[in-house]
C-alpha cells in the first residue's frame, strides 16, 4: 500500500490563499485524469487550527483524503504541525509569531503530534539560516525537503541540509492556488487515513519526497 499526500497547502482560511478546499479536490481529480496519483492533502493553515471544521463530506464526495494540520510561525522559521490536539492548542499560542520553535517541537511530541520545519532552505526565514547562525536543533530529524513554492536553489539548500545532518525529507506543494495543489507530494509506504496514522508513518521513516510528475506511473493502491 502506497499513499501520496501533499503535506503542505493553504485554503482560503489562510489570508494569502485564494483556493477553497473544494477547488483543491476538484483539481486533484483533474490531475488523476491526467494519470497522476494523489491520495490526499493536509491543510496547513497559517497560524491557526480549527477543530470544528469538518471536510469529511467533501472528502467522500471527491474521493480525496483531507487531513488538518497547521503552519506556525516561530522564532526559527515556519513549522508544519501534524496531528494537532486540544492539549497542544492549550499549551501553545498558535498566533504567537515569535514562539520558540524548539518548545513547539517538544510540545507537539508530548501531545502525540509531530513538527516538520517548512521550506528550511528558503532565504531569510528557513532553518538553514538559523543553523548558519550557530543554532542547533537536537529534536529535528526531518524537514520539508521539497517545497514546490520554493526556488530551486532553496530546495538545493534543503537537500544539502538533509545530507549533512542525516535528516529525512518530506514534500508539499505549499499551494495557495487550486492549480498549484500536489505539485510535490510525499510517498508513504503505508496506508494513511487519519492524522495519528500520518504521524505514525512519519515516525516510521518509510517515505520519500516526490514531484507530481513522478506519481504518473504509480500503481493505484
Amino acid at each position: 500500500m502506497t499513499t501520496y499526500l501533499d503535506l503542505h497547502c493553504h485554503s482560503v482560511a489562510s489570508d494569502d490563499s485564494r483556493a477553497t478546499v473544494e477547488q483543491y479536490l476538484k483539481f486533484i481529480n483533474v490531475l488523476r485524469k491526467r494519470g497522476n496519483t494523489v491520495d490526499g492533502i493536509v491543510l496547513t493553515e497559517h497560524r491557526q487550527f480549527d477543530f470544528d471544521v469538518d471536510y469529511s463530506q467533501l472528502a467522500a464526495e471527491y474521493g480525496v483524503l483531507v487531513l488538518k494540520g497547521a503552519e506556525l510561525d516561530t522564532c526559527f522559521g515556519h513549522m508544519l504541525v501534524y496531528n494537532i490536539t486540544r492539549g497542544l492548542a492549550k499549551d501553545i499560542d498558535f498566533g504567537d509569531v515569535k514562539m520558540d520553535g524548539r518548545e513547539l517541537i517538544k510540545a507537539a511530541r508530548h501531545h502525540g503530534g509531530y513538527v516538520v520545519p517548512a521550506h528550511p532552505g528558503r532565504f531569510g526565514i528557513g532553518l538553514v539560516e538559523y543553523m548558519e547562525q550557530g543554532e542547533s536543533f537536537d529534536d529535528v530529524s526531518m524537514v520539508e525537503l521539497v517545497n514546490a513554492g520554493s526556488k530551486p536553489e532553496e530546495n538545493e539548500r534543503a537537500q544539502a541540509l538533509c545530507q549533512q545532518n542525516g535528516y529525512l525529507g518530506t514534500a508539499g506543494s505549499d499551494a495557495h492556488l487550486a492549480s498549484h495543489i500536489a505539485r510535490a507530494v510525499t510517498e508513504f509506504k503505508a496506508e494513511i487515513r487519519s492524522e495519528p496514522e500520518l504521524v505514525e508513518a512519519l515516525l516510521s521513516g518509510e517515505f520519500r519526497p516526490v514531484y507530481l510528475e513522478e506519481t504518473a506511473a504509480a500503481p493505484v493502491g
Partner: protein
Amino acid sequence: MTQSARLYFEDVELGDEIGPAIVTVADDQVVDFCSLWGNPAPNRFTDQEQAEKVGLSEPIVPGIMSMALVSRVLTDWAGAGTVEDLDLVFRGTIPHNQPLHVGFQISDTDQDESGNHIQCDITMTGPVPDRPYIIGTARLNLPSRG
C-alpha cells in the same frame, strides 16, 4: 496568447493552461501611468532616488498598474466585459524593463442564473520560473454556445 475572436464557456475546461503572455513595462509607460493616475513623477515608481528613500533598490511598477496589466491580458484572451472579479496577492516588487510572464490556469467552472463562470488562477513571474511576483484569481463570465 493572441486576442480572442470570441471565447465561449464551452471552449474551456478545468485545468486548461493559458499563456503565458509576456509583457514588459518600460520606464516611460510607468511615467505616463502615474501622470494619468494623478501621482506625477518623480516618485518611487519612476525615480531611483525616491525609490531608495522608501527602501526599494529601484523604481517598481505600481500595484494598480500591474492589476491593469493582468486585466488587459485577461480581456485580450477572453474578450472585453468578461472579467467580474480580480483578486491579486503581491508577493514581490515588480521591476521595470524586464519580461513579465503572466499565466492563467482554469481552476473552477460553474453555471447559474447569473451566467457561465470560470475561475482562473493567475501567476506573474520573471523569465525564470521562480516564486511569483503575483498570485491571484479572476472570475470571468463567458457567453455560452447553447
